[in-house]
């Protein structure tokens, strides 16, 4: 859906985005993370045609970025959205709808439906200038969705929202993805939330991609073969496994979970089951601890620092 090759943006001598090759697959929710100033917003602005790339190329479903057909596919909600403050919300959305090619007769209905869907129904006839930051953010999302785009590019869509607002927005994004097969490319700093919705992730730092991939794979890759075990006879079992030399490191936490970092995960899994059966202990919990997005982020960033 999005494909870039060597996409680069320079501001004078400073390279904000440094030759990134992005691939966002159709139908996925793709997270875009990285520290402040990493180049997320700059990349998104290039993708939406607000600014031009200094080098490289990019395509939206095969259409060159910045072209009208490419923009027809995109719904974009910027980091800081500004609206025509003197217009009332429904007029504003109808105007945007018509600019995107929605018929006049449909535009208004769409605008009202969308405002309702985003819990702004009560403000349809209020001037946009009076909206709070969170309401503006919702309106930003509404204007991005108004022409039912196939691709949403959202720059920190929940940044100004209250906790319940955030959850409801994320639910709505999931709904769009599942029910309407909309591809979503979104940036956020709130990794714990992002984690709940994304299938794919690209992390950038100083304009370069540092990690990318499928979330399931990334979690495994970054989990560091970390297992959790809890039984009715923890100590005995730990001893047996230790004898077999199947983990590098282990500790027991305050809630009586045994943590094990293993290099041979297949063997460990087998042995744990055997040992539990042999000792006749009750198995309460056995799992592979999966790395959270936060873990992935922290590990990658510390590796980057070292370099």
């Amino acid at each position: 859906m999005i494909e870039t090759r060597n996409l680069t943006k320079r501001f004078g001598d400073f390279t904000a985005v440094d030759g990134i090759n992005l691939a966002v697959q159709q139908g996925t929710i793709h997270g875009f993370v990285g520290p402040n100033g990493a180049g997320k917003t700059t990349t998104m602005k290039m993708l939406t045609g607000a600014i031009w790339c200094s080098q490289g190329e990019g395509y939206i479903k095969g259409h060159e970025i910045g072209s009208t057909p490419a923009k027809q596919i995109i719904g974009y909600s910027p980091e800081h959205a500004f609206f025509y403050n003197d217009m009332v919300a429904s007029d504003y959305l109808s105007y945007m709808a018509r600019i995107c090619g929605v018929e006049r007769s449909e535009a208004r209905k769409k605008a009202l439906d969308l405002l309702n869907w985003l819990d702004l129904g009560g403000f349809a006839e209020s001037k946009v200038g009076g909206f709070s930051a969170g309401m503006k953010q919702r309106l930003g999302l509404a204007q991005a969705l108004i022409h039912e785009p196939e691709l949403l590019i959202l720059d920190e869509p929940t940044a100004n929202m209250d906790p319940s607002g955030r959850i409801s927005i994320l639910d709505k994004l999931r709904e769009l993805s599942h029910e309407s097969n909309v591809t979503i490319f979104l940036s956020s700093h709130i990794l714990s939330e992002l984690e709940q919705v994304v299938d794919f992730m690209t992390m950038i730092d100083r304009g370069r991609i540092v990690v990318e991939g499928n979330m399931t794979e990334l979690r495994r890759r970054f989990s560091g073969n970390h297992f959790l075990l809890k039984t009715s006879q923890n100590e005995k079992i730990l001893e047996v496994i230790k004898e077999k030399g199947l983990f590098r490191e282990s500790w027991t936490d305050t809630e009586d979970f045994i943590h094990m970092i293993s290099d041979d995960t297949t063997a460990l899994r087998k042995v744990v089951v055997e040992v539990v059966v042999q000792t006749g202990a009750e198995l309460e919990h056995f799992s592979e601890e999966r790395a959270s997005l936060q873990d992935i982020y922290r590990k990658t960033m510390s590796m980057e620092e070292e370099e």
Partner: protein
Amino acid sequence: MSFRQVLEKFTTTMGKPAIVMEQTLKELMGLRRLVLVIAAGLIPAIFFGAVVWRESFRSGAMSLEMQTHTFVGYFLIFSFIWIAGFYITYMIITSGMDFVSKEEEEGTLLLMVSKPIGRFQFIIGKFLALLITTLLIELVVLFGSILIFWALLGLEPESVRALVGLVFWIFLYSILIVILFDALTIAISTLFKGKVIKTVLTMLLVMLVFGVGPILRMVWPTAYENYHLYYIDPGYHLGNTYVSISEQAISGRMTPQSQAYLGIFTGTYKAGMEELVLAMFTGSSESFDPDIRAMPPSLEQTNYLNPLVSVLLCLVVSAAALGGAKVAIERREVY
């Protein structure tokens, strides 16, 4: 390409600017703004009707024919300088100067440029909206001024009818000056951001159009002709167009007084200080004796250029300004 495809292409290219145009029209035609703008446009008519021309047109002081003839001349000058002159150019500049730069300043341009509408289509929509609003408001002010003159000066119906007949021709000329200023203002709005620079530029523009020609001709009359400076004098081209349209309108019966004013302002008639002074006095009823036809002689037209050349040059400049705006907006990076 089939006819249908051509048509669809036409509506898709025309469609988007039309939407921006409609929205901009709504903004420009707000009732309060409209009332204020029109009122401002009518003030000079009230002033001239109630104060300056009051004496000259006291009923009975002039034959009907003379009244019509003289007032048509007055109205032509009044419209050229005020209604289709300073008034509409000021209106275009004040409404259009912020069209693009304000959107950029306020950040609304970012969403606009990420929408599936060509950036130049957006500009054209604004351009058309300003064109239409200005012309409509001008029409109202033209008719409004005539009504005011009628009421205040007690003009005869025949004179009023003659004035109404002029409206079409003045309007025709206005299309040209509105296109020109609309295009230039939009170009300035697209190319420059700072409020100060935009204000200075538009002031320079107005001075260039209305001021430079008269000054040049006054202080340096030979150079104006010898070096063909009229080519680069926008005031001349506009005046040249106006005069030829007016001559059409009143079948060549331009009063020497109007000729003198137009000559001074635009260089279309051979007129200097002497003629201006003369013009100022022949206007009053005392200096005019209809029986002996003691009118000053008609002034000679300068005929530097065919009016069509002037029209064409104005259109070329407008197109160039829009072209500049197109290049600028399409290269612009919007943050």
